[in-house]
């Protein structure tokens, strides 16, 4: 585990709050010089604490208004249940996340669709054809109340 000091922590908090901030802006908000901020960030990157930066995409602006969380329970009598299911799920373009769990849910898929009719098509034609499904349950997203991906540092 990487040991953070106060300066690292301040930098990471500000970065999490605003990933777009430029170096000068970031340094000013953390009360350090640009050189210090730059050196610290380079160190956090080489230590693997900062893995990278990703663009945030608004799928609604691209016409994907429906997001459904599909909670799948697999037939574990099949030794290859997880591998087969996940490999097949990767072929569905509308699948955004593939997560595995310890608990009542084995695998969770985030599915994006343009509208409920499109979702119905994906569900019937693609999802229900995935191998080794025991049970499947849908949670339809109404709204994101909080979506920060921030860590309590």
């Amino acid at each position, binding site marked *: 585990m990487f040991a953070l000091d106060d300066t690292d922590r301040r930098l*990471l908090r500000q970065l*999490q709050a605003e990933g777009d901030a430029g170096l000068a802006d970031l340094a000013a908000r953390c009360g350090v010089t640009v050189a210090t901020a730059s050196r610290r960030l380079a160190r956090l990157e080489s230590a693997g*604490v900062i893995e990278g930066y990703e663009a945030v995409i608004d799928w609604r602006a*691209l*016409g994907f208004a429906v997001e459904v969380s599909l909670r799948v329970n697999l037939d574990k009598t099949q030794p290859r249940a997880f591998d087969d299911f996940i490999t097949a799920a990767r072929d569905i373009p509308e699948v955004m*996340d593939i997560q595995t769990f310890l608990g009542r849910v084995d695998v969770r898929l985030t599915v994006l669709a343009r509208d409920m009719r499109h979702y119905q098509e994906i569900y019937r034609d693609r999802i229900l054809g995935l191998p080794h499904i025991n049970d499947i349950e849908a949670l339809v997203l109404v709204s994101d109340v*909080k979506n920060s991906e921030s*860590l*309590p540092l």
Partner: protein
Amino acid sequence: MIALDDIDRRILRALMRDARRSAGALGRDLGLSQPAVWRRIRRLQDAGVLKGRRVRLNLDALGFGVTVFLGVKLALKGRVGLGDFERAASAIPEVQLVQHVLGRYDYRLRVVARDLPDFERVLRRRIMTLPGVGDVEANVLLSNERRPGPLRGPLGG
């Protein structure tokens, strides 16, 4: 709604992997000039498709060994406003995600913790004491794969 062509999709895919790729570097990969890439990025920003960038931190390196997804059912609907639950849940630092959903549960929450005892502390002291909270189901995240999503094939239509 904005229409994308194949080059737009490739730009979005590349920026999802690395938001710091410069227009020049993207242009070299795509066989376009830097101003041409820049114009496309500006258009995607103006249409609200590109909403900025987010730092990706390594949870293990920072000592967050456990991520748990919770399904929460409210017990006293009507008596406790949804707003009370949402405000209180959003205020918990360990709660990264609060989604209002339709289905077996009313809310989905993502919780990060140092380890399982730390998660238990958050669950008992913070989650179980939320206003109106009823049935709670916990699933511990084992693996997480982010896919490029519907940017592979043709969009819209």
